[in-house]
């Protein structure tokens, strides 16, 4: 039996770096510029800074310790599993970090002429071609910097498509009630009205409700498939057919692409546009909240509207171009060409895996999810709100309703207690259609032993809920911090060190 790990996470008392001031110490000293004759400052007095900003003054060692101690108070994939549903927190290969730092890639300025960055452009092109092969789409833009940014780009293209056909009245985007919050937010940013489509008992899109919602106002629908319950929309061909017949286009939220990668091509399901989160499916690190990359892929219908520039390969000259020559383009969505550092890492991952490796990664992720689902759903107190006989893809959603009814210990408390067991909490209370939801995605990079540990942690926690429910009042206790007072913070936000100082003076 696996032993639970209840050891203490580091808990350093690290002062705010902003408190260390006025010491006269130096850390990074910029390279000076000395000319024979003193160069003047050409900036008129009224435009110049009068007072130095209050920055810290520390030695290099002090700063190194500051960050290393803080790092020990943080939890990442390198420390343990992060089974967050729809987040695909897989291992971030280290060779990718090394490659992205090659100075030829890292130091390139985005305004360098294309003849000086053929290597970067080739890497971008190779990633585009690989993603086309995996998805069946014909056009790509690497420009969006994150998943939600890709969604915005996608729905803006849908809008441009309808406008080009003089169908401005198509101003509604349909979105299932199980969708990620970014979907309705992105549709709204692109100027659309959002129409919510309920799910049926199976957790799939309700076809009757969909039929009733379709009209001459329908611009399109945003679908996550496999959906956020980890369930494949079996009727996807019919759904997409219905939307197309009504004149709408279909957007695939590719957050869950890890569940079908190399097994199903999204374009063949009838989708017109999708985004892929390279920081999920293609192993680039999440960075504690970013940077990501939300590459967008489209079929021929939407290709004219892709952001510019687009990469063109001239095989005669073996030369890569950035082309702006697309009159119907929606234009720019990012100041430059996207998060290229992330794109290089993703290409290194694809180079390691190859097509077959990626398919195997997907299948392994699905086996891991179903294995863990069997183990977790066998624990008394947890249940599967949807039919257990439906095979899940890369993730599954369990509910703690039975436990909550019996002991009062709910999903939030389970999640917090899991942290004590050195397992990052799953996504909780999402999708919104499941009560007390625990959305779990183990990914293919976790071992069977780790999956068993996760299941065992759940089992022990449920036992604790029945026997010593008082544990949950204070959990987590072995983490870098105890529970935080979020309520008073929301009432009186302290968002900078200066605000904190002012609060100290006038509480």
């Amino acid at each position, binding site marked *: 039996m696996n032993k639970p790990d209840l050891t203490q996470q580091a808990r350093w008392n690290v002062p705010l770096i902003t408190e260390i001031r006025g010491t006269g110490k130096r850390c990074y000293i910029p390279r000076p510029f000395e000319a024979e004759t003193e160069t003047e400052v050409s900036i008129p007095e009224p435009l110049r800074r009068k007072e130095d900003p209050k920055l810290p003054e520390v030695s290099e060692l002090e700063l190194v310790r500051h960050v290393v101690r803080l790092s020990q108070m943080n939890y990442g994939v390198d420390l343990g599993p992060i089974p967050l549903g729809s987040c695909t927190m897989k291992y971030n290969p280290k060779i990718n970090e090394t490659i992205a730092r090659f100075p030829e890639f890292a130091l390139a300025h985005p305004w360098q002429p294309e003849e000086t960055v053929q290597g970067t452009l080739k890497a971008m092109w190779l990633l585009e071609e690989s993603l086309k092969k995996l998805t069946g789409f014909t056009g790509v833009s690497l420009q969006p910097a994150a998943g939600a940014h890709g969604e915005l780009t996608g729905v803006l293209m849908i809008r441009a498509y309808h406008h080009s056909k003089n169908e401005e009245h198509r101003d509604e985007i349909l979105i299932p009630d199980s969708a990620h919050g970014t979907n309705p937010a992105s549709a709204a940013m692109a100027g659309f009205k959002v129409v919510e489509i309920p799910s049926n008992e199976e957790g799939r899109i309700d076809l009757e409700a969909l039929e009733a919602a379709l009209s001459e106002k329908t611009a399109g629908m945003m679908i996550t498939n496999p959906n956020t319950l980890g369930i494949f929309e079996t009727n996807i061909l019919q759904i997409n057919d219905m939307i197309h017949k009504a004149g709408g286009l279909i957007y695939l939220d590719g957050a869950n692409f890890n569940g079908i990668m190399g097994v199903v091509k999204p374009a063949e399901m009838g989708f017109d546009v999708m985004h892929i989160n390279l920081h999920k499916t293609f192993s680039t690190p999440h960075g504690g909240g970013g940077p990501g990359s939300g590459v967008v892929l489209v079929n021929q219908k939407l290709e004219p509207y892709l952001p510019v520039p687009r990469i063109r390969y001239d095989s005669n000259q073996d030369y890569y171009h950035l082309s702006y020559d697309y009159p119907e383009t929606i234009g720019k969505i990012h100041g430059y060409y996207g998060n290229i550092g992330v794109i290089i890492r993703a290409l*290194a991952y694809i180079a390691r895996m190859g097509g077959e490796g990626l398919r195997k990664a997907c299948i392994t992720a699905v086996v891991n999810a179903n294995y863990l689902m069997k183990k977790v759903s066998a624990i008394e107190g947890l249940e599967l709100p949807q039919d257990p006989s439906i095979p899940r893809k890369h993730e599954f959603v369990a509910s703690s309703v039975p436990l909550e009814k019996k002991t009062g210990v709910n999903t939030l408390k389970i999640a917090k207690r899991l942290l004590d067991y050195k397992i990052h909490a799953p996504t909780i209370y999402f999708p919104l259609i499941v009560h007390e939801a625990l959305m779990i995605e183990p990914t293919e990079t976790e071992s069977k032993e780790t999956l068993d540990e996760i299941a065992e942690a759940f089992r022990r926690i449920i036992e604790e809920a029945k026997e010593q429910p008082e544990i949950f009042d204070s959990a987590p206790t072995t983490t870098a911090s105890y529970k935080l007072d*979020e309520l008073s913070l929301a009432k009186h936000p302290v968002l900078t060190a200066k605000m904190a100082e002012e609060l100290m003076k006038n509480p």
Partner: protein
Amino acid sequence: MKPYSPYLGVSSEELKEMLQTTIGIDNALELFSDIPDDLILKEAPKLPVGPMTEPEIAEFFTELAKLNKNPTELVSFLGGGVRQIYIPAFLDEVIRRGELYTAYTAYQPEVAQGMLQLLFEYQSLMAELTGMNVVNASMYDWSTAAGEAALMSVRLTGKKNIVIASPISLARRGVLHNYLEPQGIKIVEPYLEKNSPFIRYEELKKAIDENTAAVYLEMPNALGYIDPRAHEIGEITHEAGAKFVVGVDALSLGLLKPPAEYNADIVVGEGQAFGNAPNYGGPLLGIFAFNYDKKDIRRAPGKLIGMTQQEKTGEKGFTITLQAREQHIRRAKATSNICTNESLTAAISAIYLSALGPKGFKELSLGLHKRAQYLKKKLQELEMVQVMFPQAPFFADFSVRYGVSNHKEFIHTMIDRGFVPGYPWDYDPSLFVLGVSELHTRQHFDRFANTLKEVLA
């Protein structure tokens, strides 16, 4: 022989056992049986790369990298907010701590205190630089931050025009369009003054009216110059009841007045150069700063990290706060769709700014300005080169004309001799915007001037 992937957590043997003993099936593909048969690929797609072993990857990318000009052999005079920099060794070492960069967004704050504190420090330090008192935990880049600032101004004022008070790049203009046009927001662009890198003041005054939600001024602007009328532009903006949005190259703030001192309501900008490599344009660091107001803050986009107490001990602790504005709670009514931002680049910039300290920051900012001044002087000595707007103040970028008819050929010739001679301005490719970086030495500028003399002769 297929290379075994070290990135998979279970072996084929283990997989088989898991399928048979726990899941109760023989073949993993049965888990895809609910997918229509004709959608299932019989075999994996063939990709243009891979599979490779790690040594092969290293070799493959080393070769690919060689197709780029080596930065030690190509001196690029390019700025515009993004800059080549030196990354201190200690910085790259600490930021490679897996606990930090392999972490998820800090929705479980009890295990994410490290990243949260770094982001709180970022917010605090960027507030010092801009003079504003709230900074969010980052946007994608300067352009998208400008788009979000315009949207926030519209929410705050209920008005629908954005007046652009500087020359801005075509790319920034394009991003603004995509953020604003779907909401029915109009972009109003007064003309440039003749022989000046600034907007015609009379026209600007006319453009700002009761329909104006925000006036957007860049300091420095896309041609590199700092508008001496910033204070007055802020005044006429506020007289009209509009928000004053200022875009900055954050490196300049060691030398230039913080925008809060000329009454900016929202400050946006680029912070990449604080410890992050330019990476051919991304990841970058979109700065978004504003002033605290109990109501206004609920209209702001992006994540905010707050400092509070641990319930049990009263010790300090950090968490994401005011989340009710965000997409995962407010969905279609959220203030923005942003979810994943640029947290790691923000954390890196906090560490870099801490390393610089007040003296280092000033030296860096001043050092860039001096380099640009020196370069300007060198180019003014050349007969063939026309340094534009010689009286207009600038920070580290300025504009020139080289007096050549074929710009593409000229650029190509200069690249062959080891220089990128600036960026051809979007609206007039005979105008080049030059930018300097910390990597540039006097020898670079002298050699550049000598090369120009030969090429233009």
